[in-house]
Each structure stands twice: as structure tokens, then as C-alpha cells.
């Protein structure tokens, strides 16, 4: 187990385990994946917390994210600078939230961020249109998209401001039967 000691100290591993839903082994595996993305950038040794960030373009090419229509948004909403550059901490954070064991509330918060394309803390019609177009690869006609957006807002909007605040979104998503089973990524 000499390998473990050189990547992280025990304290770091414990801290990560406290902060995420991962086991020790999984954290090390995550580091492996992170290292794989940019072997020349990411050191194998994380005991001194190097300040390394991997740009969005590399992360989006992971097989887990590659097919996801919201991949850019996922990475962006988990990056600290909002531009999609992920440090290892952000990386672990991302997969922790998207892991199976994360609670629904936590997932809802980040799902809201992901679907909030213009980062204004509301899911407005624009965001919905973008979501729909990504979901269907723009197969729907503009009228259809319009109709769906209107219906969706009408359904979920509780305070009548014709856009979805986080409260609306949470209320809607908390009753969705498939949210938990679909909003996770295995790594």
C-alpha cells in the first residue's frame, strides 16, 4: 500500500471521505482518472495540495460525460471560477454530488445550477429552450418547443412569475419518480 501514502496523506483521505460520498479506494481511483485526463499537468503526488486545474475541454471528453448533452453545464457549475476549469477538489465534488448515495436535496441544488444556463438563479424560458434543444438534438419545431416550455413553466411555477425559482424547481423535482435514478453518474 505504499502507493496510497504517496498520493494522499491519511488525513487528506479522511478529510475527503468526510466531505464526499466516496470510500478511500474510490477517491484514489478518482485521482487516477483525474491524472489520466492530463498526465503532464496533474502530479501523482497530492500531499502538498498542488494548485492544478484541468480545463473544460479535457474533462468533457471523459467517457462518462461525453454523451451527456449537458456536459458543459455540469462542468461549469461545479468549477469554482464558473468557466469550467476543475481543480481536483471540484472534480471530486462533482462526482460526489452525482454519486448514487448523494441525497435528493443536494442533487436538486446542483441540478438547478446545471439547468440554469445563464446563471441568474432562475430557470427562465430561455434556459428551458436550451435544455429542450439539447435533449432532443433540435428535432422539435420552434412551436413545439414553445408549447413545451410554456406548459412546463405553467406546471411548476408556483409564484406566478413565469420563471422557475429554486423553490419551484425543488418542489417539482422532489416528486419526480426518475430523478434519483437518472441523475447520477457512476465512475
Amino acid at each position, binding site marked *: 500500500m505504499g502507493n496510497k501514502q504517496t498520493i494522499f496523506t491519511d488525513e487528506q483521505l479522511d478529510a475527503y471521505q468526510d466531505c464526499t460520498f466516496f470510500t478511500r479506494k474510490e477517491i484514489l481511483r478518482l485521482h487516477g482518472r483525474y491524472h489520466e485526463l492530463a498526465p503532464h499537468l496533474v502530479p501523482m*503526488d497530492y500531499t502538498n495540495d498542488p494548485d492544478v486545474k484541468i480545463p473544460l475541454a479535457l474533462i468533457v471528453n471523459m467517457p462518462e460525460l*461525453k454523451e451527456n448533452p449537458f456536459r458543459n453545464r455540469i462542468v461549469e457549475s461545479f468549477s469554482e471560477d464558473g468557466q469550467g476549469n476543475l481543480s481536483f477538489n471540484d472534480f471530486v465534488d462533482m462526482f460526489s454530488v452525482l454519486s448514487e448515495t448523494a441525497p435528493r436535496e443536494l442533487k436538486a441544488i446542483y441540478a438547478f445550477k446545471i439547468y440554469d444556463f445563464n446563471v441568474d438563479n432562475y430557470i427562465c424560458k430561455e434556459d428551458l429552450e436550451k435544455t429542450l434543444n439539447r435533449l432532443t438534438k433540435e428535432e422539435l419545431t420552434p412551436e413545439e418547443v414553445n408549447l413545451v416550455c410554456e406548459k412546463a413553466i405553467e406546471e411548476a411555477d408556483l*409564484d*406566478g412569475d413565469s420563471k422557475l*425559482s429554486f423553490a419551484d*424547481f425543488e418542489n*417539482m423535482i422532489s416528486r419526480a*419518480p426518475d430523478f434519483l435514478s437518472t441523475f447520477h453518474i457512476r465512475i
Partner: protein
Amino acid sequence: MPRHKLIASESDGKDNEFSLYYVEVEENSQGGQEKQTTRDGKRRRERNGEVSRRRASEKRTTEVDTKRAEKKHEKRHKTARKEGEKHEKRQRRKNADEEEAEEESNKEKKNIKNERTKTLRRDDEKEKDVKKKRKKHVKNEEDNANSGKTKQKDCHDMPLKEKKKKRKKPETTSESESKSESDSAPESKDNQAVGVLGSLTPEELEKLKEAVDERKKLIATMRGKPWPMKKKLVVLRSSCVLQRQETLLIISFLYYSNCQKWMKFQRDFENFKTACIPWEMKIKEIESHFGSSVASYFIFLRWMYGINMILFGLTFGLVMVPEALMGKPYGSIPRKTVPREEEASAMNFAILWDFGGYAKYSVLFYGYYNSQRAIGWLKFRLPLSYFLVGVGTVAYSYMVVIRTMARNANEEGGGDDTSFNFSWKTFTSWDYLIGNPETADNKFASITTSFKEAIVEEQESRKDDNIHLTRFLRVLANFLVLCCLAGSGYLIYFVVRRSQKFALLGLENYGWWERNEVNMVMSLLGMFCPMLFDVISTLENYHPRVALQWQLGRIFALFLGNLYTFIIALMDAIQLKRAEEEIVKKNMTIWQANLYNGTVPDNSTAPPITVHPADIPRGPCWETMVGQEFVRLIISDTMTTYITLLIGDFLRAVLVRFLNNCWCWDLEYGFPSYSEFDVSGNVLGLIFNQGMIWMGAFYAPCLPALNLLRLHVSMYLQCWAVMCCNVPQERVFKASGSNNFYMAMLLVILFLSTLPAIYTIVSIPPSFDCGPFSGKTRMFDVIQETLESDFPAWFGKMFSYASNPGLVLPFLLLLVLAIYYLQSTSKTYKRVNMELKKKLQTQNEENKKKNKLAALKAANELEQARKAGEQRSSSSQHTQNSEPPVSSTHTTTRPPASRGHTSSGHLPGHPQQPQKNSHSNRR
């Protein structure tokens, strides 16, 4: 400090690190003290003015020293050679972080810790001229506080420094830690600990404990917090500091170290547990390629494997092993010996493959077991154990299935209302697990179609073009399906009857086909009928999901029909065997009489003649026959599954892949293409397989073991097949919704398969010369026998009272009443729930209307105000009037929140966002 410098420059390794650390600690403690001094008012500065100045100069030199030493150290370790500056920057930033964390922890700490000192100080200020004694006391207190601060600081600087130094061995860390601690405050530690402990009142102790508990709670819920990792780590570190402080204060030293150990153990245990889940990685891989629906099959398979593992453990540990170890050995009694006429061929592979010969007369089957009440030196009650294990397997299966169903129902609870149809479709339809381009394409297509369908439904403009035609077609399709079902049922019945005829005439005269006809026919029917149904269902023109359910229902009916035909035919066979048994019984007495008459004509007291057990005539033992049938069925079923897999999937994939280059049309996307993974069919196969296990396990204890083997192999084989030669299915079958569907089918099958087993156990008398219950009129007599002979008399009496129909019937009645009551209450709850929902909805709508009205009103007012303002402002300056109206329109677009938490527009944990938000809104 020349000494440190000297050491830092000269010595290397541990010593170097240690001395360096020492310097830093010194510096920190001084810094802390200085801070403290600046905080304390004038009085103190006056007193300590000189000292602090001197210390400051000292500190500067130390800083220089440390920096130099650090650089040297870095060079020596060759780790961050180029990043010298960066490193320092980071360090500074980290220190800032540390400061934050410290503030946070201090906030809590300060109130408690400095309370006493503060009050004392206040007193002190009030009476400035009072005796020096008191001042001294205060000073002591402050010193204590200072040293406490120092400790705190170096405590939470510790991890950082450690990281910087990159120790290779954790032991050295702890060592130096302890050393540095003892170095930095060697004498004050004890004093402080004792002093603080002595000076703290129980209330303060309580407070401290509370604070610590709060921290612990925070750590426990840390992972659920939507904070970025950095913040988490900082908070964690600060709480870590707190914890260490507590340990220094010895408030609950043992308590916390134990706690830590316990937490560590829990964590390790958790790690171990996840490492123990079998096939997790395989399933994850499949899930990421094919989405959750295919993975749900494998998860179901794994679940099944777990159940079978327990069934196997029960039968193996409590029935098979005791009989094999402690029972009479092979060849001791007739039921444990191969009869003379079968001896010659008993070792032939064909016979063994059919579970005849030696396999038939072994622990694998019911007939081998002896009816001796207690065996071995343990006095193991084998017949009782056999019976209880048989009952226990079924009971356990019921329990597990129902528990799982209840859990699933809980998870799904409330998901059935369709008030958020479109939003759900928008936000939850993408499966984040998908990592395969083809699956992704299919998913895109299915999402698009589902949207289109929903839109069409919403518009309700679709006209049924020809309702009569579709009706006619549907009726026709159902008729055809019924014909298929009846035909397959009749075919099986016919084949089973024919096989009985063959069996009566002796199987040896027939070939392989005649011997395996029943199983082959059943397997073939199971293979081809679903395809036929699929073709027929295209007539019906149903919605795909509805069509899928119809299809599943039909296959279910087919399998069930086949199984029950098989069972009915088996019942017939049992009756035949029993008739045969009667004849054998009669013949037996004649044979015995002949034996005695022939060999010992006159002397009746002579020792009994020893006849080799293989020569003694015996009954046909219908139980073993039933067990054999089930085992054969399972084997042939498994074989067909594997062969279909190899031919239908693997060979097809190979052909399509390699013939595609030299073929006239595109094979990959044209007619044959690659096969899809058929989730529903596979699940059904698994369920029926399990049903057969439940049915046959009583008569063939080896069945769970066989099934375990089968599941194990198919796990690997199917995983491989899926990954190598299947394409993801186009039809969407949601995993979450279907889980309980599978479970419900499993429950039905469990019930249906226990019925015949229970019927045979209860109503058919066991064979007279084989099995653990031979010689009894009914199998369950073994319970009564045990009650009579193994339990005290009063217990048997009580049991007989309890099993009295006069008691049992009221009890049953009570149960029924309870069920009725619970059901009706749940119904009312449901209704109330619905009403509440409706109320909520109407309220929401009202709110919406109100809000809209309010917004309109506000807009009107605003308009008027603006007009007025414009009129007014036209006379005054022009520069100011643009800003206020914009901001006020901003407020009107968001009417006052109607609900408590609607105002929480921004996300928790991200305080920087609201500003951004308002900013962007204003834009």
C-alpha cells in the same frame, strides 16, 4: 536564532524538519502573543511595550531565518523547485484561509473561553487602583489564554506544515508533533490544562461540550452540504483544530479519542462493505454503456443470487451435510443403494447427466434420506430439519420479496401524479449514466418521440382514423395469442403424457430425443412463442409502453401455462407411481414370505437372512421422480438459455460483423443487425427459473446449489455477451418504474409455485420406503412426533390447544379484520391526501392570480409614477431619472413571494450569487 539556523543548515532529514518546525512554532506563538497584545488595551501595551518591540524585532529575524531554512529545505527535497514563489503565494493564501477558519472557530471559542477573562478584566478596569494580587491573577489568566491561542494556532497550522514538508512516514509526523508541542509550551501545558479545568464551571463545560457536539454534527452532515470542496475542507480543518483543542483541554480526552477510533473503524468497515459487493464494477460498466434499464436486469440477477445463496446455505448446511456426514453411509440400506438391475449402467455419463444412476441415489434427492429420527452423536433431528428447511425457504422468500416490494413502494411513493408531466420530461428524462454513443442516440430519439406524443396528447387533435379496424385487429391479435397459448399448453400436455408412456415401457429403448422431449419442447416453446407474440402485437398498434406490458403479460401467461401443464402432468405421473407403489407393497410381503419360506423352512428363531440391499425390491419413490424432473427442467432450461445466447447473440454478431464487408446490403443496420439485450424477456426467464427452484427444492435439495451455479455462470456470460455483441435496445423501459413490476411478478410466481408444493406435502402420503418421512401417513406428522417426544408434555398440550380450530378460526378472523381495517384506513388516507393536493393546487392558482393582479396593479402605479416623475424631472436634471425606474420595474417583475421559502431564490451555500443575480437582472 543562530542555533536553529545551524541545525537547519547542517543536519538533514528528520532533525532538520524538526528544528525547522520548532522555529516556525516559535514564530507562530510569538505572532499569536503579539496579536493578543495589540488587542489588549493601552494598559497592557504600556506595560509590555518594550518587550513586544523586542519580540517584534526577534520575530523579524526568525522570519528571515525560517524563510532561508525553508528554501534550503525545499532545495534539498527537490519537490517544488521552480514554484518557489508560487509556493509562497499559495502558502499565504492558505494562511488567509486558515485565518478565516480560525475566526470561525474562534467565534465559538472566544465567547466561552474569554468570558471569564473578560469579566475579570472589566472588573480590573473598574477598580484600577486595587491590589496587585488581583492583577497578577488576571495576568495569569491571560497568559493561560495566550498559550491556549498559541496551541490552537500551531494546532491548525500543523497539517499545513506537515504537508509542506512532505513527510514520508506518518510516524515522524506524530513524533515531531508531540515533540514540538512539548517544546513550545513545555511547562504551560500542564498548568494550563489544570488551570483551565479548574477555572471552568460545569456550565462552561457543558457549553464546550455542546459546541463540540455541534461541530461533530457538522462533520457528519458535511457531505450533504452544497459547498465547494475548498470550503468543506477548511471547515473540516477548523473543526479538527477544535477537536484537538478539546483534547488538550482534557475535557473529554478519552471520549474523543474513542470517538475518533470508532469513526475510523466505521469508515473502514464501510470501505470493506463496499468492497464486498460482488460484480459492482461489472454492473457499473454495463450501466454506463447501456443505461439503467439493462443494468437493472443485472442488479436483479445479483439480488436473486443473494437469495439463492441463503437458500443454498439453509439446505446445504442443515440437510445435505448432516445426512452425508452423520447419516448411514451409502450402501447400508436399500434406499441408499443402486438397485441390482441399474447397477451396470449407473456410472454411464448419459444416465448421470439425466440424474439417474448414482446421482439418483445420493444426497441430491429426497429418496436418499433416512427416516431415522435422530442421527449422529449430535442427535440431529434430520426429518424435522428437512421439513423445517423446506418450510423455511419458502417463508424466507416470501419475507424478502415482500420487504423489497414495500421498500420500493416507499421509494416510489407519490410519484404517480402527472401534474408535472412536461417539467419532469424536461428535467429528468436524460439518463446521466449513458456513456455510449448508440445508447445516447436512442435516448435522444426516444425523448423526442415522447415529447411529440405528449404534445399531441396535449393538443388532443388526433383523430382515431379507423377505430373499428383497430378494434377488430386487437381482438384478432388477442384471439391469435390465445390460440398460441392453448396450442402450447396442449403440446406440453401431449408430450408429457407421451413421455410417461415411454417411461412405463422403459427409457432404455429410446433415443436422446424421446428422453428429453418434454424439456426440449418447453424450452423451444419458451423461445419461439415470444417472437410470435411480438409479431402479433404489431397488429394492435398500441403505445410502446402499453405494448410492452401486453407482451410481458402474454409471455408470463405462456410460461405459467406451460409450467402448470407440466405440473398437472407430473401429478398424473405421481398418481401412476403411487398405484405402482401399492403393487410393490403387496409384492414385497409376498417376496418376504417367499424369502423366509424358501431359505428357513422350519426354524423361526434363526438369525435373519442378510440380503444385499441392492436386491431388495423397492417402491418407485415418486418424490425422487418429481425432484429429478425439476432438475432436468432446470438443466435443459439453462442449456437453452446459454445456447441461444451463443448462437443468437454471439454468432449473429460475428457473422454480421465479418460478412458485412462482402454482402450486398448493409448487415449492421439492415435486416439481421446486432441483437438487442432483451431486458424483460431475461427478467421473466429469471423469475420463472426461480419459481421452478421454489417448487422443486423440497424434493431435490440440490436445486438451490444448481441454481447458484447457473446464476453465477450467467452473470459472467451475459455480462460478456452484453458488452461484446449486443446493441442497446431502442425501446425504453424505465428501470425505476419496472422494479416493482418485476417484484410483483416474482411474488405471483412464488405464490403459484408454493401452491403445488404445499398440495403435495399436505395431501399426498409419502412413499413407504424412501425419504425422511417414510412410514408416516403425512409429511407434516414429523412436527407432531417431535412435539410429543422432544418437548415436555405441557408444551404439546398447549400446542394442541392452540391448534384447536376453535382458537385458530377466531385468530384468522381477527387477522382478516385487521387487514380490512388497515386497508380502509389507508384508503381514507389516500383520499385525504388527494383532497389536500387539490386544495394546494387551487390555492396555488389563486396565489398566481393574486400575484398577477398585484403585478398588474404595481405596473400601473409605476407607470403613473413614472409619468409623474417624468413630468417632474423634465424640469429638473436629466441624468438621474433613468436609474430608479429600471430598478423599480425589476421589483415588479418579481411580485411578493407567496410562500415562506419562495424568496430563497439564490442557492444556499453560494452567497456571492445573489449579487451577481441582481446585477444580471438589472442588465
